[in-house]
């Protein structure tokens, strides 16, 4: 990333403006024997105005060859003119013309030749005597007389400086605050750890001490205590886990979890759901139910996980009527929750679900949990028009590793795409059924894709006995590529 000094470019516009004549002013190049008065007569403008436009003070000097700014609207040759209110202009320095050599530059006293021209009408202009302005007045004056681009950039600069300072303060403040909270947390952490361990393993009074209850009203202490309790609980099962749940309720933490679950921010709500699920608080199931099909991925996943843990009898009931496509991450978490409650439902119920994600999940899980009752229905999904479903079915059948659907898989092979083809070979390999030998041989010898050939050679190797002999006999008359394939497949170190 180039945070560039590109703004140099912005500047050119303005440089170039300076290089050209400005629209309001015309330039007069001072010649020999001229003074300001004479120039003012030339253009028919008041002498004081010329001085003001060019920032000439009482002891001014002008140079031959230098520029003097003359305001265009006021130029009326030889006539006296009405003068508008003096307006503010940007300053322009009298720039010496560098083409003139030094000897040509001579100063002209502004008052010296005045008498020569006293027959000319002298224009009257009220002389405004101003007192020396204060510093901030100067700053304000400078600010208001500038152009709007200038103003904007100036303000932006001030904003930047301010924001850097504010950021610095924010960072410092946060560090200090974190440090303070951490000190408080570390103070109580060990105490709580001891307390919870005592609660678990030693004979204890059935009530939580009053002092602790008071302490837990402070959110810092409560956070530490809850986090410690929950992390311990997630590593425990059975009796001790129940003890911790009891402690949670006795310590009066339930209402805070429920409050979290009703919070309007999704991330707090999700944490609330998680606590409800872990602490087996079933009262708010209605709330969780509402979020089972939430559009917010995280909230939906947490709600589903909570639902599974709170309804051990029919944990996956929300799969019956899913309204959104569930991500693999969500399904993975559902699976984790299922493991927590130690329940494996019959996935056959969702095998033909119209929601693709649920169907994929059911097929995959049938394979993972080896639910042999579902073999037929999984095999039926091999006819599906969706490639992902077919792939999942192929893999699931491979995982189950029973040879019944071998024939169907081999049939499918001809029409499949290459990725599914390799999955079919892998699955058939896992089934390691001798009826596959001709098929593997066929693929190994005649298929064009080398990775498929290697896979089917491996499939042959996996079937001991007859297949091994067959490979050896093929090896004798094989071309170099086939030889390499067979050697590769037989090398069990790979």
């Amino acid at each position, binding site marked *: 990333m180039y945070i560039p000094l590109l703004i140099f470019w912005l500047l050119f516009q303005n440089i170039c403006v300076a290089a050209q004549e400005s629209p309001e002013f015309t330039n007069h190049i001072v010649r020999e024997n001229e003074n300001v008065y004479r120039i003012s007569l030339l253009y028919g403008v008041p002498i004081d105005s010329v001085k003001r436009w060019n920032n000439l003070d009482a002891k001014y000097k002008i140079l031959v060859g230098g520029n003097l700014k003359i305001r265009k609207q006021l130029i009326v040759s030889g006539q006296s003119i009405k003068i508008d209110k003096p307006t503010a202009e940007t300053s322009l320095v009298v720039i010496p013309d560098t083409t003139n050599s030094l000897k040509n530059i001579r100063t002209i006293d502004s008052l010296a030749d005045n008498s020569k021209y006293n027959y000319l009408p002298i224009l009257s202009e009220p002389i405004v005597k101003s007192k020396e302005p204060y510093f901030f007045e100067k700053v304000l004056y400078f600010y208001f007389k500038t152009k709007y681009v200038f103003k904007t950039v100036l303000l932006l600069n001030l904003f930047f400086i301010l924001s850097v300072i504010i950021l610095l303060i924010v960072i410092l403040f946060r560090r200090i605050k974190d440090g303070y909270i951490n000190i408080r947390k570390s103070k109580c952490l060990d105490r709580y750890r001891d307390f919870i361990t005592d609660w678990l393993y030693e004979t204890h009074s059935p009530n939580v001490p009053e002092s602790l209850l008071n302490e837990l009203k402070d959110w810092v202490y409560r956070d530490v205590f809850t986090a410690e309790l929950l992390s311990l609980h997630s590593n425990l099962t059975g009796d001790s886990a129940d003890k911790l749940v009891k402690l949670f309720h006795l310590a009066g933490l339930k209402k805070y979890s429920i409050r979290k679950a009703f919070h309007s921010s999704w991330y707090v709500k999700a944490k609330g759901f998680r606590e409800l699920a872990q602490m087996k608080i079933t009262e708010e199931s209605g709330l969780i139910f509402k979020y089972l099909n939430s559009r917010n991925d995280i909230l939906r996943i947490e709600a589903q996980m909570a639902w599974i843990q709170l309804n051990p009898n029919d944990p996956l009931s929300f799969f019956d009527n899913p309204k959104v496509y569930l*991500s693999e991450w969500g399904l993975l978490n559902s699976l984790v929750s299922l493991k927590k409650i130690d329940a494996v439902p019959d996935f056959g119920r969702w095998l033909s679900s119209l929601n693709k994600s649920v169907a994929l999940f059911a097929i995959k899980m049938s394979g993972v949990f080896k639910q042999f009752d579902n073999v037929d229905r999984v095999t039926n999904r091999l006819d599906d028009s969706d490639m992902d479903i077919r792939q999942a079915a192929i893999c699931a059948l491979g995982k189950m590793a029973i040879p019944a659907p071998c024939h169907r898989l081999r049939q499918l092979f001809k029409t499949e795409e290459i990725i599914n083809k390799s999955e079919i070979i892998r699955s058939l390999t896992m089934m390691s059924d001798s009826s596959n030998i001709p098929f593997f041989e066929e693929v190994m010898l005649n298929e064009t894709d080398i990775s498929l050939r290697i896979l089917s050679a491996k499939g042959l190797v996996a079937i001991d006995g007859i297949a091994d002999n067959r490979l050896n006999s093929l090896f004798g008359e094989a071309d170099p590529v086939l030889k390499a394939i067979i050697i590769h497949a037989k090398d069990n170190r790979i």
Partner: protein
Amino acid sequence: MYYIIKILNFLIENGIFVYAIAIFLSYVIMAIISGFEMIRYMRKNSFVDYSTIISSPYAPPVTILAPAYNEGNTIVENIRSLLSIHYSDFEVIVINDGSKDDSLDKIIAHYQLEKVDFMVNYIIPTKPVRGIYKSTNKAYSKLLVIDKENGGKADSLNAGINISNKKYFAGIDVDCILEEDALLKMVKPILEDSESRVIATGGVIRIANSCKVKDGKIIEINLPKNLIARFQVLEYTRAFLMGRMAWSRLNGLLLISGAFGVFDREIVLKAGGYDHKTVGEDMELIVRMRRYMIENELKYRIVYIPDPLCWTEVPDNIRVLSRQRNRWTRGTMETLFKHMTLFFNPKYGNLGMLGHPYWFFFEWLAPIIETIGIFYFILVFAIGNADWPFFFLLLGFTYLFAVTYSAWAILFEEFTFARYRQKRDVFRLLLISLIEPLFYHPLNVWFALRGNFHYLIGNISWGKMEKKGFTDKIKK
């Protein structure tokens, strides 16, 4: 002279003003987008238990591809670091790209390797593979070593892709130090997206200079003592936390750093693998994968993870830095010009209308325009018509913008991962951000210009990066 100014003036009044405004606005917009995205990411991941992925049948199988060239003094250590990563279904393929040193012997000796009869399938054509090695020790069963003839990094990665057979592969620089849960974090977006296929994920590269390393793990994070490296901390923080986060949100990410990225092997194969002719193979591959997906009308996403996952040594002297930046510039140019059909092509959506033109104008062209600007300014200055108050004001503006932007990046880091825990480190970073526009930025512009020059004269040499091994630091 007058006419030169006239012509330039015309260009400037119409184009450059808009350009300058656009570049500044784009930075501001990116900062805002990435800010919101970062908040969302942090909230989303505040209660994720990554370890659930390990034990799950949903964990996508990943091959780690680590090409190595003359890394003899660190290679054994680095492989151990790779093997100790937390993941279930993964293998590590180390590709020895015809090293001239004793890398291969060292690996063979240390990991008890022996040659196996591997049938190499050259799906993507590469330089010939001399041999494939596996360990006899069961503890290293996840390791596979490819010995091939020298062909460069892209060629080595292609060889690795040919040999790997898992669904995803992670391309990494072998001298990188991965955090243990790096892969878990990288594959999560793949699982998460339910609507489109995630074809690649990229991670943050952090700077390991001056960090304490033991047994292939970072044990203490320090701000680099070296000034050049410290500048890069700021630069990387800015680019990764503010730039890429926004691009990821817009699904317009054009670059996943070659040092660490996970890719969908199938799509990479279909797109044709890495291009070994370019020096910017990582960017080129992403562009080609995107094109493949768009041309075949497939829904896809390329995701970026802001977690600090991969630590690497960056150049700590100007000479090496110059070569690295030179190479980056050439890589960018090669990729941009090779895919010029994308330029403002509405058919390619965000890639054509946003990603490619952005890189074209603001990454490639910016240093060039900036240099011309400086020369132009000198010209105007010589003529003597500069508007000095405005000049200094604008100079101040650019400088302060850069400083503020860096300060925001530091704030992002502070509120998200806060890896530099010492209070004085934050001040140091802020201090660095004050010097950076004056010293480091002009250097970078100069390197980029040299890159352009070398591209034009067709000097395609490998900017080799000399790295001090981690091993000599452990001895200290």
